[in-house]
């Protein structure tokens, strides 16, 4: 293993330009992927925040005792899909309407607006089907007069999310495949640059495992360096855009950062393993 580490380091020092080229190719491939990821992440966050506003409002018949409404709200709160169910009394409904309508606040008179149970749904249960299911269930409660939840709006939001999801997945896969191909070609260049060394190793009796080892270490190291460089580039790009376009973008959390660097390392490791394995099978 000591020799494998030494040879891997030697390869870096022996061909610094080629090593720098490999690292920067990995970095730029991952950078393109990360930029796309960042856009996808921010779109997802925007859609999530819009989706948080998905709400079912169950209007209660006049004269229903408050205890009955409270009990119903507690019961609804226990539904698997429901995040919270809140009682809004007639007075609270009036205050809210006056606040939301501002200058038209005086059109409402006390007692005009009905009390309601406002139901917020858990993430993952905000699709039209789940919302419709909860609404139908709430509608069966005897004193519930009407249930509203903006069926059309939720359907459109859901469609938009699906389109964004499928497009994101397809583009993400395409970016990943292109990155792997470019990185693979670069790693293959480093293997070909050392083909003479490999052939001599084989002639003097080195096992294929021994020959592979320094390449795997080198590929792993280049992958980690490329991943870190890509992260730095993405951070700089994100900060620059925030600065000039005056908006606050979401950046990768620690888990995604670790995932990105590990991804770079794995691409470097497996790319090298594949390239050297293919070379060994050919010579």
């Amino acid at each position, binding site marked *: 293993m000591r*020799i494998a580490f030494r040879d891997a380091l030697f390869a870096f020092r*022996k061909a610094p330009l080629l090593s720098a080229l490999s690292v920067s190719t990995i970095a730029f491939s991952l950078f393109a992927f990360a930029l796309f990821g960042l856009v996808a992440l921010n779109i997802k966050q925007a859609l999530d925040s819009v989706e948080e506003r998905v709400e079912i409002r169950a209007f209660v018949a006049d004269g229903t005792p408050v205890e009955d409404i409270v009990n119903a709200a507690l019961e609804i709160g226990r539904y698997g899909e429901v995040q919270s169910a809140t009682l809004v009394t007639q007075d609270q409904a009036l205050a809210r309407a006056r606040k939301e309508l501002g200058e038209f606040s005086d059109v409402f008179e006390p007692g005009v607006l009905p009390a309601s149970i406002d139901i917020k749904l858990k993430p993952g249960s905000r699709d039209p089907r789940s919302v419709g299911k909860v609404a139908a269930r709430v509608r069966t409660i005897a004193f519930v007069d009407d249930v509203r939840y903006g069926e059309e709006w939720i359907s459109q939001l859901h469609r938009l999310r699906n389109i964004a999801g499928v497009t994101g997945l397809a583009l993400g896969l395409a970016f990943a495949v292109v990155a792997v191909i470019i990185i693979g070609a670069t790693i293959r260049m480093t293997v070909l640059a050392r083909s*003479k*060394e490999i*052939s*001599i*190793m*084989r*002639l*003097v*009796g*080195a*096992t*294929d495992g*021994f*020959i592979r080892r320094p390449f795997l270490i080198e590929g792993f190291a280049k992958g980690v360096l490329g991943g870190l460089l890509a992260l730095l580039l993405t951070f700089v790009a994100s900060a620059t855009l925030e600065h000039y376009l005056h908006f606050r973008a979401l950046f990768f959390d620690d888990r995604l950062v670790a995932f990105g660097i590990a991804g770079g390392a794995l691409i470097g490791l497996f790319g090298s393993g594949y390239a050297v394995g293919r070379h060994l099978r050919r010579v």
Partner: protein
Amino acid sequence: MIQFFNVSKEFPRTGLALSEATFRLHKGEFAFLTGPSGAGKSTILRLAYFEERPTTGEVRVSGMSSSELRASEVSKLRRRLGIVFQDFRLLEDRTSEANVAFALEVIGTPRAQIAPRVNRALTQVGLAAKAKAFPRELSGGEQQRVAIARALVNDPLALIADEPTGNLDERATRSVFQLLRDINSAGTAVLMATHDLDLVRRTDYRTIELDHGKIVFDSTETRPAVGERP
């Protein structure tokens, strides 16, 4: 030591390179492989160190058979052989001693043993004084000596040499050939492919002549092997 039993080798693009070759190189023997270009000399050598496998027939080297040895086990065979080429195949970015040490490192030789063995091999080929020199700082003959030292450092049972003097001038040729003879005298079998008929005529070593992939002459019946000579 090295045995060929009715060995034929056919390549998909170039066709038959070797046809029904049968011979045996004994322990400690020296044999020349001669013949024009394309006669099959290098094919025999490549088959001997299992770089190629026979299309038909069997090659046995030091008890290992071409029909049984798996690709992953070829390294075991190579550790018992020393291989030398016309173009030396040295690593240009490593010194003479590093090139020789390389052969020991890649087979996992303990660190403490490497330096003395490298020194011994370089001394054997007369290049101990140039241990720190890079290949570009050496003459062709000296580079070939380093390659021979690398081949010898594992104490091989046989040395396989493919036109080892092909790139050398007359003086270097004589010197490298003498080195190979000395190595053979010390007990290592040598199978050497060469174009140089003067070199062949100068000695009474066994000569296997090839033409169009066939062994057309083998002096083994008329000349005893080195180990069997009085």
